[in-house]
């Protein structure tokens, strides 16, 4: 019954997207008529289907469906190549009440265990001070905090997917001070969903303070350098005694490091980020280091060297059809519906994700209480092409080359280097 309902919802979402693509291109491209009051009650379809209740409230409906070909990472995957997976089907509403209370509620229809994604309200007291509360992503990591709709690649960077905290319940104060300085400071129940697995025995961080500062130093300068932005972020939390949930997975989500090492103590995340989007180009880079203490967990109940997870990426894109990256490619200059090619972008990313112990020197061991652990590192390059034939449709093709330092722990033991490929069709309302 539930399965049938899911199929029905999928079908409805797909149909809605296709219908919208075909039926409302003109209105969608032009938006609201000039001179029309934005508070006039009624239904409008600009960026999203929107219900406007005068100055009191404005509510948008949002939906996203992603269809992926089966990833080809393992030999078993090769046998399934060519099939399609419904990767995501997201439905949500977002809006503004009384012009100062923003809200968003997102539900992933494909996830029965933890379906609610963003569920929060944001109080816009003033530009320098806003207060956000609910369940949402911790302000840490540029890549993780980029909407899945706008990703340059099918999959987030490995550090964004596994080292950044992800979502949790909490409250955050944020805003813009001076010109070009943004801050986000919050406290959350735990250190995010990425530190957890389906295995309840795995441990994760408790109450987590987080801080992030981003600076756009040339915000009022020449256009080509205006979009330059750099930032740093930090979290800390206490992790109870146990085996941690943070693990290493490849770009296409195959395990290459499943930690069996006991931890206990403070976990700290350090992050730096950089983004620059001059014209049709963009460059992004991040570095994250997660250090988790191992207090009192040795065979003699003494401390062990910390467990270290570390990752970085550098990526670049070029919109070959000329769109300005900072404005997004979802509005092609020459959409297919008007006889154009849509927006076409090429992208490349180099990244690394590794796990180790802080100590070195003695023989590495897979003992859960080893001073020097058997770590692993994945170095990956992703090559992609993104095609936006229309603002609601996006097609992505990625080829990924990955190299594991310890292939025995990876998806293809004996193959230190392997290629994967995947295609995604994304429909967004």
């Amino acid at each position: 019954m539930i399965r049938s309902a899911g199929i029905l919802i999928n079908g409805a979402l797909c149909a809605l997207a296709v219908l919208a693509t075909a039926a409302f291109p003109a209105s969608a491209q032009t938006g609201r008529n000039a001179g029309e009051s934005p508070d006039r009650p009624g239904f409008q379809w600009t960026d999203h289907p929107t219900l406007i209740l005068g100055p009191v409230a404005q509510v948008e409906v949002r939906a996203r469906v992603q269809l992926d070909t089966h990833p080809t990472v393992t030999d078993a995957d090769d046998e399934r190549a060519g099939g399609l997976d419904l990767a995501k089907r997201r439905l949500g509403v977002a809006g503004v009440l009384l012009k100062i209370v923003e809200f968003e509620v997102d539900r992933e229809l494909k996830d029965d265990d933890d379906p609610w994604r963003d569920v929060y309200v944001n109080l816009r007291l003033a530009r320098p001070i806003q207060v956000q509360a609910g369940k949402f992503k911790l302000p840490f990591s540029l890549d993780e905090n980029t909407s899945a709709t706008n990703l340059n690649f099918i999959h987030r960077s490995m550090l964004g997917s596994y080292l950044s905290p992800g979502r949790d319940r909490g409250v955050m104060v944020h805003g813009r001070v001076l010109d070009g300085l943004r801050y986000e400071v919050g406290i959350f129940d735990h250190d995010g969903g990425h530190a957890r697995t389906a295995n309840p025995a795995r441990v994760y961080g408790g109450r987590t303070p987080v801080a992030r500062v981003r600076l756009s130093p040339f915000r009022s300068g020449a256009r080509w350098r205006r979009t330059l932005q750099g930032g740093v972020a930090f979290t800390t939390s206490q992790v109870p005694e146990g085996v941690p949930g943070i693990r290493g997975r490849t770009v296409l989500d195959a395990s290459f490091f499943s930690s069996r090492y006991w931890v206990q103590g403070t976990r700290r995340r350090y992050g730096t980020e950089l983004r620059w989007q001059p014209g049709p180009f963009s460059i992004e880079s991040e570095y994250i280091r997660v250090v988790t203490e191992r207090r009192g967990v040795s065979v003699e109940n003494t401390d062990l060297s910390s467990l270290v997870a570390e990752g970085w990426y550098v990526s670049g894109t070029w919109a070959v059809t000329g769109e300005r990256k900072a404005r997004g490619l979802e509005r092609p200059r020459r959409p297919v519906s008007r006889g154009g090619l849509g927006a076409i972008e090429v992208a490349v990313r180099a990244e690394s994700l590794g796990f180790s112990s802080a100590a070195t020197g003695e023989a590495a061991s897979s003992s859960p209480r080893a001073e020097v652990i058997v770590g692993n590192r994945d170095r990956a390059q992703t090559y992609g092409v993104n095609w936006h034939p229309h603002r609601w449709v996006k097609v992505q093709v990625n080829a990924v080359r990955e190299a594991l330092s310890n292939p025995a722990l990876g998806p293809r033991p004996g193959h230190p280097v392997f290629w994967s490929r995947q295609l995604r069709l994304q429909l967004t309302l």
Partner: protein
Amino acid sequence: MIDRALVGHVGASVALVALTVWVSLAPRSAVAQTGDDLFDASVVHEVRLFMNTRDLAELRARFEENTHYPADLVWRGERVRNVAVRSRGLGSRNPIKLGLAVDFDYYTTGQRFLGLRGLVFDNLWQDPAMIREFLAMGLFNRMGQPAPRESFARLYINHAYQGVYAMVEDLDEEFLARTVGGRNGVLFEFKWLYPFFGDDLGDDLAAYKPIFEPRTRLHDPDASLWGPVRDLWQSVNDEDSVTWRPSVSRFVDLEQFVTQAAIENYLAENDGLLGYAGMDNFYLYRGEGATIHRFFPWDKDNAFLRADLPITHGIDSNRLMRRALEYEDLRARYFAVLAACAQMDLEEAWLATRLETAAALIVDFTHADPLKPFLNADFDRALDFMRAFARERATYVLDAVARQH
């Protein structure tokens, strides 16, 4: 005037004294130890294991599982880090005085300790005399049959005395390399699940897999691992007396099997190849690329049942032994080995001497053993029983062998 020779002599003496002092003060670990040192039976070794208290509590709580836990092992000042410890044993398995198997390379690939890949700490739970296993394996080695080396150890876990253990060489590739000269063959540990007297379990390999558990070449295909084992037991059950021996000889070293069975019967072993509940406590080995198998003895805590245990005990119930002894040369070999054991024992007072040596070594430590499942008086009585066995067995066996002729 001082004589130059005197100066030279004094100088040499001083140098010699200095050398002696230096050697005596040098750390013991500087002297290379070997596996033979670990199994030096002239001392009771002190072995210390260090385990996280959480793991130790879980090991005791889940003693019936074979879950591995990390530990460090210390012997004569040498610390082996990141070893794996698990509960072991069948009837001897318990949460109080843990029977333990130590794997040196479970967590650290290729790690060896004194050339050993694994080490067993036999808790001697079922032997009030504490020396049965030690004496039995000693006799196998004395008679030229490869068997695990053993010595006694005082075991401490996290500084708490656990009692006297038999430290037993594990049967693995390193044992094979030491005894039969090749580490690439297939070694099976026999797992007693039901009375097995050498029966034909059918064509399906699945019937053999649970009771013949591979300890080497774990990733070989089933047909390669268990196919020859099935062929072995099917040939044993071949009813044709003309083809039986050539057929079985393709899969079993019959002379070796008969020899091991004879030594076990000299030891009045009631739970071995010819055990009361079927075959038990042995390993089966097949060389690389070969089809022929041989046996290794294991776990002799139930030997020395009684001095007058018949020398033909268990023969009739075991299909392989019964058929083998229908051949005159094999029958002669069986009784000859029994007689050789008895003769050697009689001439050298082998059992009695070794028994007294071992008993003297462990008596104080055993009396102080806080976790043994019997009283000190039980231990003393069991030793007396063993002394009587040592006095009587050789004569009994020689008489019985003579009657066979």
